[in-house]
């Protein structure tokens, strides 16, 4: 089925004679066979968004439909790989076409020559349904890839293979009820704009450990939850995303660089193979899939990249894994949507964005969640979706940030004034929130006792009080504060500097375990309690503030991650003694 181009305007192409094509079909455009997707149909004329640069294309050229919607290939070979927005492997494209991305390159997403050792699980004669595991492949040292029965297939296993196979080899034959035989390979295809099915969804109840103190202790996210990281440029969005990609205790990470800087993707590509997962010592790249559609790459493929990413995530979820999807940045995705909408001459909504912006965003985030997977065996998997938002001028009243805030449950608001003071991560503790606080509380209490959440609340309370006291100080100066209020200010400063600040570039500090987080905050709060007590006894504030243990607390976050207990005990003892001495001095006076 082919049609003829009638109009070319940037990435938008109109073609007639496509009456038999379906909306959302993938088409090949012109002599270069550029990849495109049908957006709208009027009569036999289709509006096509082309995923590659359209220079040199003109009316009269051919358009061919593939009859298939935009899909991804799912199977072994995705991990430790980097794709563009429509799942073409970038290293292989480089081998084929050089340092620049040329057009019309056709490379299969999964390597067709690489052999995998297929280890069967299902036995001939068994009855299988969609989602049942046929066999496994050790894809990387970190991840066991489960080859599942594709959706829509059910029946009796006639044969299963064992041993070395390429992804296109038949590894099992299944006969359905009608007697038709299905030859299954290790590849499944799935249309990216449709969510993969599952048995049922649960409310998230376990936290995702990120090793970041402000996240884990103050504003935790649940596995299967959704979060947004909005902030102006230079406030550290990308560093937060990278930290989450590195240290989150999930099985698989899908990192989508959507319309962002090329060098940032290179950074991930270089750094991740070197970094080791703190839980199993495997290189982080072995559990990571990168999707890079940098800002200089075609804008339409940027729109697709988000869906490509989340579909791959759902596929790993269906194996029973915990997956995190990090999208940097959803604002660039929305801009791509706006650009296409403008070219289609649709009626614009707010700030030129199409009226369907909010519903598209909601559809994306709603694909996150904790689910009971299809197939036999109690498999639970989760997809956690975390999107960066880049609001113009850092002003979150704009449509993308507002639409995102209505959907996500966790909001880590980055603040440029914190970034200027080099307070990183520059997550503002007063404007951020996590709606998982209550659902996660039982987990924290069960693991670490009541004190964990109590400390958190105490710390938040002190920070809140500090912001009120600062108003007073700004008006009448520090001398007007009572000693108790001055102590509050000092403690708040310690919470900010000694606990919340975390240096992503120092090995000892980049990842903080729950235990270390708890002890560190506890040290700071213990200081507060002891001093408050001493103040009652008449101790001098200046003396209390000058105790040498405070400097030690300031450096405590740099303690050896595995062996900090002893050091913290020593600091606590020293602090106790010094404060008692200060208090004793107070009584004498």
């Amino acid at each position: 089925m082919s049609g003829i181009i009638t109009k070319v305007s940037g990435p938008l192409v109109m073609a007639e004679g496509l009456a038999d094509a379906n909306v959302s079909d993938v088409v090949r455009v012109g002599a270069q066979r550029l990849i495109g997707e049908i957006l709208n149909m009027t009569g036999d004329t289709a509006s096509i968004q082309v995923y590659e640069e359209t220079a040199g294309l003109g009316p009269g050229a051919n358009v061919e439909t593939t009859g298939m919607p935009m899909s991804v290939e799912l199977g072994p070979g995705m991990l430790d790989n980097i794709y563009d927005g429509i799942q073409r492997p970038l290293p292989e494209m480089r081998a084929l076409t050089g340092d620049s991305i040329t057009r019309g390159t056709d490379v299969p997403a999964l390597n067709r020559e690489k052999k995998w050792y297929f280890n069967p699980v299902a036995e001939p004669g068994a009855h299988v349904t969609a989602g049942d595991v046929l066999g496994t492949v050790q894809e990387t040292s970190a991840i066991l890839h489960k080859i599942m029965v594709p959706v829509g297939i059910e029946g009796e296993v006639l044969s299963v293979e064992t041993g070395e196979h390429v992804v296109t080899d038949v590894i099992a034959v299944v006969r359905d009820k009608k007697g038709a035989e299905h030859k299954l390979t290790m590849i499944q295809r799935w249309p990216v704009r449709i969510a993969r099915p599952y048995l049922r969804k649960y409310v998230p109840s376990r936290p995702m450990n990120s090793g970041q103190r402000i996240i884990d202790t103050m504003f935790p996210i649940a596995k299967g939850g959704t979060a947004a990281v909005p902030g102006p440029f230079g406030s550290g969005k990308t560093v937060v995303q990278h930290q989450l990609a590195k240290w989150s205790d999930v099985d698989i990470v899908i990192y989508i660089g959507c319309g962002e800087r090329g060098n940032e993707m290179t950074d991930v590509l270089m750094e991740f193979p070197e970094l080791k997962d703190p839980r199993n010592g495997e290189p982080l790249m072995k559990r990571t899939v990168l999707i890079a559609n940098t800002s200089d790459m075609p804008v339409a493929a940027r729109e697709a990249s988000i869906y490509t990413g989340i579909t791959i995530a759902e596929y790993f979820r269906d194996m029973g894994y915990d997956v995190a999807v990090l999208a940097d940045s959803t604002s660039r995705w929305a801009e791509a949507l706006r650009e296409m909408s403008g070219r289609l001459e649709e009626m614009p909504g707010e700030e030129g964005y199409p009226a369907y912006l909010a519903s598209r965003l909601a559809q994306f985030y709603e694909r996150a969640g904790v689910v009971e997977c299809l197939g036999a065996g109690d498999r639970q998997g989760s997809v956690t979706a975390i999107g960066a938002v880049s609001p113009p001028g850092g002003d979150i009243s704009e449509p993308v940030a507002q639409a995102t805030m209505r959907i996500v449950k966790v909001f880590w608001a980055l603040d440029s004034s914190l970034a200027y003071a080099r307070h990183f991560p520059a997550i503002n503790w007063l404007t951020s929130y996590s709606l998982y606080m209550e659902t996660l509380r039982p987990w924290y209490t069960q693991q670490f006792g009541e004190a964990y959440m109590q400390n958190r609340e105490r710390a938040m309370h002190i920070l809140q009080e500090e912001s009120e006291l600062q108003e007073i100080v700004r008006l009448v100066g520090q001398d007007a504060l009572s000693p108790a209020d001055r102590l509050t200010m000092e403690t708040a400063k310690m919470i900010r500097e000694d606990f919340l600040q975390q240096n992503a570039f120092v090995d000892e500090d980049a990842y903080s375990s729950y235990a270390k987080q708890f002890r560190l905050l506890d040290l700071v709060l213990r200081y507060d309690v002891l001093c408050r007590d001493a103040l009652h006894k008449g101790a001098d504030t200046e003396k209390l503030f000058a105790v040498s243990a405070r400097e030690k607390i300031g450096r405590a976050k740099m303690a050896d991650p595995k062996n900090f207990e002893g050091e913290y005990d020593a600091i606590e003892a020293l602090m106790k003694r010094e404060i008692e001495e200060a208090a004793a001095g107070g009584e004498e006076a």
Partner: protein
Amino acid sequence: MIKEYKTIHEIASPLMVVEHVEGVTYDELGEIELPNGDVRRCKVLEVEGDKAVVQLFESAQGINLAQSKVRFLGHPQQLAVSEDMLGRVFNGMGLPIDGGPEILADAHPDINGLPMNPAARAYPAEFIQTGISTVDGLNTLVRGQKLPIFSGSGLPHAALAAQIARQARVLGDNETFAVVFAAIGITFEESEYFINDFRRTGAIDRTVVFSNLANDPAVERIATPRMALTAAEYLAFEKDMQVLVILTDITNYAEALREVSAAKKEVPGRRGYPGYLYTDLATMYERAGRRQGKKGSITMIPILTMPEDDKTHPIPDLTGYITEGQIILSRDLHRKGIVPPVDVLPSLSRLKDKGIGAGKTREDHAGTMNQLFAAYSRGKDAKELMTILGEAALSEDDKLFAKFADEFEKVYVSQGNNVNRSIEETLDLGWNLLRILPRRELKRIKPEMIEKYMPDEA
């Protein structure tokens, strides 16, 4: 055989509609021949059936609908490149204007370039010493980085950019360098300032100038930076040179883009700029970088003047989202006579972390850098408090921080346009300033470093 059309249907500068065309493709370059023999250039923005919408690069004055002829050349806009471009001056469309001979082209690349495969990039990590403390010490520039200067009208961004171009070098390295300078809609005087500076230091022989001055056609400005980058890519990746690209002024570029967008009657985004401004800027900025297996590099310093000094204006805002940091100039510091008036706190270099430290600059670099930032920020807060409540309201520590902030601006930031400080001098200067503060406040620096570089006087 190239067809000629005498079917211009409509001209609404800078757009023109040509009818009854055949075989015309998107983004193709065209030529318009006027009745008097003048030839002007244009490119195709949209083709629908037999109608082509084209954009003129020059003024529409004198074009006669009935008698002018249009030819489509069958290829997008190209630039003739060769090593002989060094030392030459071109107009915004890439034609020589210095009276010299035509360039004998080595190749004719498309000026729009191609997106670089992220898997082919090499991460920028080689420290460039610019000799300017606020850049080297705090916002370190590395090879292959794009670091814009955000300025305002009347601020000395030209002096700073020229100083960087003059002093920049990679330590212990003798590779050939080149400067590509694109004047985008700036005045003759500003352009001459740069060219004279290149001439004075002898750098002019290693410089390629693309000049679109304020009185040249505005629409041509859309092509000018792309011309410059095409030349830079050729020199860096074909000829192994270390290329520094200076683009000034991006604000003029974005305004030209807005002009064309408005003429096309596109739905405007913020402040009338087209919705694709981000993508458009990105396709330029992202051409900076290094490639694996290639010796050369493109380091880019775009300059833009922020309208009303407003950092949230779309041009600086979108630029900041694409570039790897920014150097911001401050009007307050400029008034105080601080040269260069770099506003340290909001300035940033995103690539500094991989370019500094032991073996690259010095082991104490990262710690002192963070400490200087944090201390200066606190010092400025203290000074603000002091102006409201008087000095008495400050704690003893805060008084020290306020003093630190003053000294920091006077000594560290204000070094003048002709002082070239080595990285060691810059770092030592930082330590000297940190002595003002109580030692226990130096929490950002590892204790071993403090012991080594600031041994206890006692």
